[in-house]
């Protein structure tokens, strides 16, 4: 699946997007965050405070307990500050 990162999540990870292939036991958004956090310091820093992380599955907001399912795209970003 494609992972997208925005704003300071993008800056800390150092990537705007990448292909990821989480193992089968990663079921929810929360578990995907934990799996990514274990990769290196950049990911760990990006996801250090899960309360400030928002996610979207196929361009729709998704909470931490949402199952990733067959989504083709997941995005991680800080709380929105548009408008």
């Amino acid at each position, binding site marked *: 699946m494609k992972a997208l990162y925005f704003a300071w999540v993008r800056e800390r990870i150092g990537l705007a997007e990448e292909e990821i292939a989480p193992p089968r036991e990663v079921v929810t958004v929360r578990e995907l965050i934990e799996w990514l956090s274990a990769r290196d310091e950049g990911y760990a820093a990006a996801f250090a405070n899960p309360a400030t992380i928002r996610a979207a599955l196929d361009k729709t907001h998704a909470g931490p307990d949402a199952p990733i399912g067959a989504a083709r795209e997941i995005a991680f970003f800080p709380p*929105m500050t548009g408008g």
Partner: protein
Amino acid sequence: MAPQPTPAVRVQAEDFDLGREQALLTRGRRDIGALVSFLGLCRDEDGALEALELEHYPGMAEAEIRRVADEALERWPLQGLTVIHRFGRIQPGEQIVLVLAAARHRADAFAAAAFLMDFLKTRAPFWKKERRADGASGDWVSAKSEDEAAADRWR
């Protein structure tokens, strides 16, 4: 009941023109009684801000605004709705966002425009980074708890 209008939603780098958008929404219409517009502008924070960099999530930004617009159309009998949100570099005094809501009666137009703004703030995937006038590298703007509270009042 008149059919629900199709909201006009645009996410763009270019500036927009309130007068032109008003004309597009009202031209040839004789049934609109009230048109409320909200225009959000970039403030210079008493000279501290040189510019905002507005990052967005292409595709989701349009989709999310459209979802909020559809919700507004279900809540209030509107005759027209336009939402424009810019991204990219925006300088103090420049326009960032426009919401236009047309209805027969003013209370519906006011409520829909306020609702749209409260939800755009908390749901539309845009992030502001400040470029500071003193040359220091700026920060990402923090989400405000008052914006969450403003959105919560519609639940």
